[in-house]
């Protein structure tokens, strides 16, 4: 039965011996390989094994705090959670991204985009969702076995407690871009995923705010899970604390005064140049930039008519309109072209050559002196004065007041504005017929129109100069820098006088009398700027209404309405605060801008003198009537002055 089974057709031992020889050869190869790895290259592998388990990571420092002049933190840090991915722990990146996308309901493309933005070594975390909300964290944790390589990590995040308050001053931070990372000045300090100041003070003071990162060396397992720390550690040093000149309460009032409007407010201390409040509307919430901001959201922010990211107080220029008249008045007095008592006759128009320049009051103001001309904002008076000064003297005095050049505020993106002059025209229109100055161009400039443009901040600096006796201060926002624990003062800003005006004190006082009448005289254009009677604080100032389009094509559309300006100061005798408000398309300075200034001043004096805030107005449109009993001087019904319209240039 087993014949074939039993038969030995080939000799077994030699074959078995061959097989054994083959096996011996294979094992010899293995042993040789082991000798090579373990004996010959063992030391090098031992070193690699040490490096393998020792990792050093950067510890991000806490960003410096920005606080207001009284210590109220405007920008601070709060704990937050990021959903992140470690590539070396992710067997299939595509799959994990797809799954995360379905778990969190974020498009795959969006996640891939975030992943792509962050390069660098593989063991560095890629942040997929910054500042994840509670629901997202719970979803990721619940599905963590389904999401290899994806984890949740604690990471302090910038937090602006008051949302959009002072947004344009504080600015915002964003994830550093790939382009920035390649720049030599950033390369050494940042890594992908880091947040960096991109706007406002956050950008300007980035070096101070960023802090110094620490080094954490530790033993890890293959999943980069920390087993224990190694002895040598470098702790992170938090960024420095910025102390601003901004006052939170005044700033809040200022922001509120612009609610629903487009425009800007600057509040400044004329005695030293400190900026007490600086608002631009519409504002943004800087918190949105620290989280995930989609490309579409970003585009929505930077483009569009609203120009949300534009700081209208320093970046935007407006024709100053009638606000400009006060500086012309000071120039006329200094040059001896007028005296406080000299008068001009306003028939309602003024002729230069063939051109007729109208006063906003068609039938004229009659005979007016400087004080009256400012009070009623007579255009003809200043057409005449402007002509006597000539364009270059207007330019010179405006320049002395700080117009036409940046004020030197410690905030980037400041625009210089423009005061026209013969030299400017020659340069601007070089080679054309327009290259010389025509006398008919001067009257427009004299009333703050034409090519004249200024930033709200420049007006604030100029008015400060007017009311502080002629000192042009450099405005500033950061008054001190402290170490993170507040113990060491690293830098302190002292008020800086950039130049002296060089105008007689009497001249300035004469103009100021006019400015007080603008607010307090029954004919004044800015009666709405008055503070509560019982406070006993007088306000001075000047309204302005700047034309947006030619009156001939003006319609009732909002974007055709004039910009409203008001520049005021208080107390009139010894000014502590200068406030400038610009309300775009606010129709008239007295109606729209003066109440905004008043609100800021109320907040300021409430804060500094503990004066009780007046009851909020029921309606915006109700004219403010003087308190009935105490002051006999106030007329029972303050005649609401028809808002001055700027002179229309009509060629005959």
């Amino acid at each position, binding site marked *: 039965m*087993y014949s074939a089974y*039993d038969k030995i057709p080939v000799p*077994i031992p030699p074959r078995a*011996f061959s097989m054994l020889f083959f096996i011996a050869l294979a094992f010899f190869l*293995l042993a040789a390989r082991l000798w090579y*790895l373990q*004996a010959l*290259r063992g030391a090098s592998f031992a070193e*690699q094994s040490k490096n393998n*388990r020792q990792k050093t990571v950067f510890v991000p420092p806490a960003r410096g705090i920005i606080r207001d002049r009284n210590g109220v933190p405007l920008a601070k840090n709060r704990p937050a959670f990021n959903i992140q991915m470690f590539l070396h722990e992710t067997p299939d990146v595509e799959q994990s991204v797809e799954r995360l996308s379905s778990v969190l309901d974020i498009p795959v493309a969006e996640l891939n985009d975030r992943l792509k933005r962050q390069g660098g070594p593989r063991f560095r975390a890629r942040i997929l969702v910054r500042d994840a909300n509670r629901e997202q964290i719970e979803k990721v944790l619940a599905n963590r076995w389904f999401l290899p390589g994806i984890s949740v990590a604690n990471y302090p995040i910038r937090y602006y407690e008051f949302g959009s308050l002072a947004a344009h001053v504080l600015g915002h931070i964003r994830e550093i871009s790939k382009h920035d990372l390649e720049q030599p000045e950033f390369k050494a300090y940042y890594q992908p995923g880091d947040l960096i100041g991109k706007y406002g003070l956050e950008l300007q003071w980035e070096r101070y705010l960023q802090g110094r990162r620490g080094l954490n060396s530790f033993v890890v397992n293959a999943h980069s899970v920390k087993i224990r720390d190694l002895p040598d550690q470098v702790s992170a040093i938090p960024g420095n604390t910025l102390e601003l000149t901004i006052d939170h309460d005044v700033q809040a009032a200022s922001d509120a005064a612009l609610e629903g409007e487009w425009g800007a407010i600057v509040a400044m201390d004329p005695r030293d140049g400190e900026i007490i409040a600086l608002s631009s509307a519409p504002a943004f919430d800087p918190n949105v930039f620290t989280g995930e901001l989609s490309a579409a959201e970003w585009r929505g922010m930077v483009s569009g008519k609203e120009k949300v990211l534009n700081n209208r107080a320093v970046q935007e220029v407006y024709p100053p309109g009638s606000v400009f008249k006060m500086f012309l008045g000071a120039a006329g007095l200094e040059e001896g072209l007028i005296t406080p008592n000299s008068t001009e006759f306003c028939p309602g128009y003024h002729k230069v050559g063939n051109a007729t320049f109208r006063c906003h009051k068609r039938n004229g103001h009659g005979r007016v002196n400087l004080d009256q001309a400012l009070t009623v904002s007579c255009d003809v008076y200043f057409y005449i004065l402007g002509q006597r000064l000539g364009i270059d003297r207007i330019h010179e005095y405006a320049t002395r007041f700080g117009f036409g050049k940046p004020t030197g505020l410690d905030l980037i993106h400041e625009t210089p504005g423009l005061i026209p002059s013969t030299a400017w025209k020659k340069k601007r229109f070089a080679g054309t017929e327009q290259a010389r100055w025509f006398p008919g161009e001067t009257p427009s400039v004299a009333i703050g129109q034409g090519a004249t443009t200024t930033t709200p901040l420049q007006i604030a600096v100029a008015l400060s100069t007017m009311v502080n006796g002629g000192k042009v201060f450099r405005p500033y926002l950061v008054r001190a820098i402290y170490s993170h624990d507040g113990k060491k003062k690293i830098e302190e800003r002292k008020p800086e006088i950039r130049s002296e005006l060089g105008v007689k004190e009497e001249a300035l006082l004469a103009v100021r009398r006019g400015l007080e009448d603008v607010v307090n005289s029954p004919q004044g254009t800015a009666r709405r700027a008055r503070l509560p009677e019982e406070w006993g604080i007088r306000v001075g100032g000047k309204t302005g209404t700047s034309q947006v389009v030619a009156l001939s094509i003006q319609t009732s559309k909002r974007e055709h309405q004039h910009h409203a300006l008001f520049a005021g100061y208080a107390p009139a005798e010894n000014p502590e605060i200068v406030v400038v408000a610009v309300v775009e398309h606010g129709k008239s300075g007295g109606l729209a801008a003066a109440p905004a200034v008043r609100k800021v001043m109320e907040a300021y004096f409430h804060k500094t003198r503990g004066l009780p805030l007046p009851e909020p107005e029921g309606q915006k449109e109700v004219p403010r009537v003087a308190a009935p009993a105490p002051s006999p001087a106030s007329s029972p019904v303050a005649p609401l002055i028809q808002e001055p319209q700027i002179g229309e240039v009509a060629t005959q």
Partner: protein
Amino acid sequence: MIPEVKSYFSSIDWILLLIVFTIPTIGISVLYSASYDPDTEHKFFLWTLNSGLVLRQLTYCFAGIFVMFVTAAFPAKAAFRLSYYLYVFVLLLLVAVLVYGTISNGSRRWLSLGPVNLQPSELMKIGVILALARYLSKTPPKHGVYGLTELFVPCCIFGIPMLVIMRQPDLGTALAVGAIGAAMVLFVGVRKWVLIGTSAIGVAGVAAAWNWFLHSYQKRRVLTLFDPESDPHGSGYQIIQSKIAVGSGELFGKGYLEGSQTRLEFIPERTTDFIFCVLAEEWGFIGSVLVISLYFLLFFRILQGVMRVKDYFSALVGVGVVALLFFHTFVNLGMVVGFLPVVGLPLPLFSYGGSSMLTTFFALGLVLAVTAQRSVFSSR
């Protein structure tokens, strides 16, 4: 009764068994180190193992030894008679796996039979050894060595299960089956030109596959073998980490329970396919060579038995088992030391896992049975 038992034990190759027992003993101590977690366990206190890995491996080991002794009690002729039935039965199971099998890690390998999970491809290795041994011993080459036509049936015997296993897909096991078949056929002898021809066709096939059929990721997996640093975190990761683990053991090792590479989980499959890393890292060159020598002694002893047997079937079973164990050992170690691609094959008697342990002991039981010089064989 007593004489049979006496003859059974006297026929057992105790030297072989000594080697066979030494390997898993070392293996379990290495497994303990590989699964050891210093935060939750006390050194050398086996019972507190929360993973239970070592205890389970011990259980598999004893079950395997039991299977081995039972198998060894059967006479070789029983294996001879049952071989084709076993082969056909396992082949049917393999087909059943393709249809009803449980999917894990992207392939269908397991058949769920109530509480027991069966992996028919493991059993197929034994099935191929027995069926091929029977066929080859019944059909010796007519002219001393096999010609091309004579090779058709033997090639089918191991080729068909190979293809089925490849479908699961399980490349490692399919290659193991192929290696077993090739070793057994070669043992009997193959005509020289057939050998040269098949080699040539094989080389051409590989070249063709490389150029036209392989996906880029498959090519990359092969290429990283030669240059693992080109993709240190992807497919080269295991190769690099494994080499670092082995190399950092240096001559005398880092000491038991001290291997940082494996302890800190840099080696993903440190209890199964890459368990040799743990040994090499903690016991160094000395320990590694000692264990390698044990495997060599194991094969040496089995082949020594093969040289002694009087029948061809027994010899072929022994050769098949050596081929099975050697292929696993060599491919596994070659992968660990970084000169073979990462193919998921366990190290016999060493890696954690019940299937591999049982199959290996079953195969060793067969070796014991066919090499036992008992009266029942010598007097047919």
